[in-house]
């Protein structure tokens, strides 16, 4: 059924902290690794180490440069399906294969009924859906629906693979429909925002803004002074201190 359900109270989604993300791609590779064996398995992967790699990825990490009058900043920018509240990617689907779950708001493609017409990918402004030419069906982020409710894996693993993999803690998973959840509180505290809010699909996933350094390049910075370790007065310490001074003076 591709008509949208009544908005659910539970809105599962991700919060991505652009201030922390370092663009390491761990979430993207981990996503691919889990999902090529998961709900939408397999994810096509052609010539992965060759000259012309191609394939379906559900999470992609861009890097942008943000420039102000005085400074530029690199922002690593993970982008995946935002599990929107009012997305046309669901309503345009002729088969009902593209649907939004009434119970938790996850947007999924049923790989058994999708005819591969690609219309849903045309309706997504975020470029979040990728057609799998091998399978002939559309692939997209499932929010790891096969992990988060999976009772056969340890409880601490019941989060999306990307969240589990992120080494910096830039990704958080939770219920954005609950204003008291940790993710919602963090979004409120950090001025979390929607991507392309103007478009009106009402994404569930939120992004936290990068902070600009308080130091800008036109400020003159004091030369870093090297801390001189206090000597304990022993002969060997004095020798090292003398060698160090002698070498520094030459350098």
């Amino acid at each position, binding site marked *: *059924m*591709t*008509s949208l359900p009544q908005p659910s109270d539970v809105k599962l989604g991700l919060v991505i902290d*652009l201030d922390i993300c370092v*663009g390491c791609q761990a979430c993207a590779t981990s996503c691919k690794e889990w999902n090529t064996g998961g709900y939408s398995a397999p994810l096509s992967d052609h010539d992965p180490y060759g000259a*012309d790699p*191609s394939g*379906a*990825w559900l999470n*992609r*990490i*861009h*890097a*942008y*440069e*943000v*420039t*102000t009058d005085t400074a*530029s*900043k690199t922002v690593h*920018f993970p*982008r995946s399906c935002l599990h929107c509240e009012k997305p*046309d990617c669901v*309503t*345009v*689907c*002729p*088969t*009902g*294969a593209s649907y939004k779950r009434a119970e938790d708001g996850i947007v999924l493609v049923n790989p058994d*009924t*999708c*005819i*591969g*017409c*690609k*219309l849903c*990918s*045309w*309706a*997504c*402004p*975020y*470029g979040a859906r*990728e*057609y*799998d*030419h091998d*399978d*002939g*069906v559309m692939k997209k982020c499932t929010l790891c629906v096969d992990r988060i409710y999976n009772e056969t894996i340890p409880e601490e693993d019941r989060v999306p693979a990307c969240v589990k993999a992120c080494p910096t803690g830039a990704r958080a998973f939770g219920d954005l429909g609950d204003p008291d959840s940790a993710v919602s509180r963090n979004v409120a505290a950090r001025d979390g925002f*929607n*991507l*392309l*809010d*103007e*478009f009106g699909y009402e994404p569930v996933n939120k*992004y936290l*803004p*990068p902070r600009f350094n308080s130091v800008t390049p036109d400020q003159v910075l004091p030369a870093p002074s090297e801390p001189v370790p206090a000597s304990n007065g022993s002969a060997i310490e004095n020798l090292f201190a003398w060698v160090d001074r002698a070498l520094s003076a030459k350098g």
Partner: protein
Amino acid sequence: MHPAYSVILFTTASGAGYGLLFWIGLAEAFGAMPGGRWIGFAMLTVALALITVGLLASTLHLGHPERALGAFSQWRSSWLSREAVAAVVTYIPAGLLWLVWLAGVDSGATPALGVAAAAGAGVTVYCTGMIYAALRTIRQWHRPVVPVIYLALASGTGALLLGLMMALAGFAVVWTLFAALVSLTAAGLLKLSYWQQNDGDPGRYTAEMATGLGHLGTVRPLDPPHSMPNFVMREMGFSVARKHALTLRRTVLICLFGGPLGLIVLSMFTPYDAGFMAIAVLAAGIGVITERWLFFAEAEHVSMLYYGAARA
């Protein structure tokens, strides 16, 4: 947007087929069909063949054509599903009319069947246009004029075909020429307005909005997420150089509108000579395929904001 040849073939061939069906249906309803039933039968066969070839071509670009039955289920929300339903429903009156003419039974129902077939043809083409016009992600398509252009072009190309076949059969049916004249003129003017609207619209959305980083400064892509183009870039990122687009627009104006309109007027003075109409059909065929290719190639998708487009 990437112009898929199957979709171009589908929308142009079945568009002309539905246009032809529309005019045959109306002609039958108003008793304006010259000649015996075999003339009608032959022309209806051509219309149904064009429609069927188009529909089959459209399933070629599906990943799973064998599951196509599912596409009839979501007519409540999906224009693609509505199009599928309308296409199949239209086969009922059109097929019955075809059978009645084939069997030669003297049935009083043919005018009603004609009206129903004509209405079905119109609805189906309208749904095709709405598949594109409903997509808010592509500003060039998201315009009320888009389904009207689809209708006018189907009507124009269908009437041209009808005029050619009538002339081949030795009938001087001036109203088919007028139908083609009016439809193509309307389509041409609407298409000019469509291009004008698009040329004056740089797009409402920016890379700053897409990334949500606009309050910090201007945004430009630094590193793409991958070393080679992905599906989204190939499908949504296809674009045609402005210079080529202008050449192709001129081709459309000449082949689809100017040329055929002149030839129609000429053939009004030589009604039994199919020569002018044959050239007009040929030119319009080239023109409408070019028009459809451009329709895709000039369309820009909002998702390209993540891949370097400044506006969309």
